[in-house]
C-alpha cells in the first residue's frame, strides 16, 4: 500500500488554479459583450431587433462545435498516451459542449419563430444537421455507461469522440456547400463581411463565450478531481487497499 499522501504526490495537477481570475474575466467580458449588443451594435436593416439573437446563438454554436472537435483531439491524446486525464478532458469537453448545444437549439428555434414564423423547419440543412450532431453526442453517455470496465469504457469513448469529432467539420462543410440553404451566414455574405460595429460586437461575444466554455470546463474538472481525491482518501483512511475502485457503475471517467 502506498503512503497516505502518495496520491497527492503522483498527481500534482490542480484544476482550480486560476479559476477565480478566469471567472472574473468571463463575467466581465460577457457583460461587456451583451452591453455592446444592446447599446453599441446598430439595428440590422433586414431583420431589425431580432438579429440581436445572433450574438448569443452563433457564438454558442461556434464554441459548441469547436468543443466537440476539441473532445476528439483529447481522445486522440488519450489513445496515444493512455493517460486517464485525457479521457477526463475529452469527457468534460463533450459534456460542456452538449450543454451549450442545448442553448444553440433553443435560441435558434426562438430566432426561427421570429424570422420564419416556425419554431422548427425540417428542410433547413443547418438546423437539421446541428440536431443530428446533438443527437449523436447525446449517445455518448449511454455508450460510456454501458461499459463497466473503465479501460474499455475510456477506449471505446475515445474512438467515438474521434469519429464524431471528425464528423462535425465534415458535416458543417457539407451543409455550407449545399446549394439550397436559406440559413443566414454570419461571418461572410455575398455582399462582403459584417460591418465594423456588428463584427466587433460579434467577436467580443465570441471571446466571452469561449472564455465561458473554458471556465465551465475548469469548474467541472476541479469538481471531479476533488471528488475523486476525497473518495480515494476516505478509502485509504478506512483501510481499504483497493483505493481505485469507487464502487457503482458510472459514465464518468476516474482520474
Amino acid at each position: 500500500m502506498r503512503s497516505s499522501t502518495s496520491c497527492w504526490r503522483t498527481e500534482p495537477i490542480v484544476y482550480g488554479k486560476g479559476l477565480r481570475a478566469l471567472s472574473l474575466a468571463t463575467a466581465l467580458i460577457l457583460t461587456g459583450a451583451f452591453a455592446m449588443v444592446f447599446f453599441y451594435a446598430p439595428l440590422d436593416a433586414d431583420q431589425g431587433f431580432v438579429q440581436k439573437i445572433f450574438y448569443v446563438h452563433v457564438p454558442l454554436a461556434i464554441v459548441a462545435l469547436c468543443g466537440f472537435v476539441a473532445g476528439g483531439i483529447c481522445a486522440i491524446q488519450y489513445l496515444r498516451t493512455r493517460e486517464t486525464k485525457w479521457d477526463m478532458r475529452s469527457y468534460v469537453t463533450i459534456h460542456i459542449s452538449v450543454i451549450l448545444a442545448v442553448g444553440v437549439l433553443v435560441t435558434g428555434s426562438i430566432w426561427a419563430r421570429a424570422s420564419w414564423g416556425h419554431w422548427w423547419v425540417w428542410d433547413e440543412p443547418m438546423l437539421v444537421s446541428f440536431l443530428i450532431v446533438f443527437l449523436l453526442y447525446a449517445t455518448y453517455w449511454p455508450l460510456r455507461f454501458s461499459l463497466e470496465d473503465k479501460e474499455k469504457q475510456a477506449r471505446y469513448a475515445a474512438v467515438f469522440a474521434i469519429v464524431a469529432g471528425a464528423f462535425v467539420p465534415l458535416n458543417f462543410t457539407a451543409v455550407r456547400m449545399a446549394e439550397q440553404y436559406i440559413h443566414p451566414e454570419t461571418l461572410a455574405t455575398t455582399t462582403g463581411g459584417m460591418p465594423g460595429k456588428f463584427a466587433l460586437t460579434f467577436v467580443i461575444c465570441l471571446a466571452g463565450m469561449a472564455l465561458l466554455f473554458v471556465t465551465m470546463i475548469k469548474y467541472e474538472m476541479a469538481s471531479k478531481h476533488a471528488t475523486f481525491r476525497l473518495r480515494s482518501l476516505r478509502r485509504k483512511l478506512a483501510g481499504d487497499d483497493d483505493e481505485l475502485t469507487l464502487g457503482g457503475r458510472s459514465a464518468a471517467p476516474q482520474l
Partner: protein
Amino acid sequence: MLPALPLDEAGKYVAGAYLVFLALLLIYLAIMASKLSRIEREVVELAELVDRKAEVKAEDGAAPPPAKEPIA
C-alpha cells in the same frame, strides 16, 4: 424570411433567447452548487473518520500492555 418584426414584438423573442442562455447558466450553477455541497459533506465525513482514528489510536496508547503468559 418574414419582414422584420416591430420592436415591441421582436423584443420578447430577443428577451426569450437571452433568458434561455441565462437559465442554462443558472442551472449549471445550481448543479455545481449541489456538487460543492456534496464535496463539503465528504470533507466533513473524512474529518470525522480522522478524528475517530485518532481517538482509537489514543485509547490503544493509554491501555496497559497485555500480561505475559508464564513459560512452563
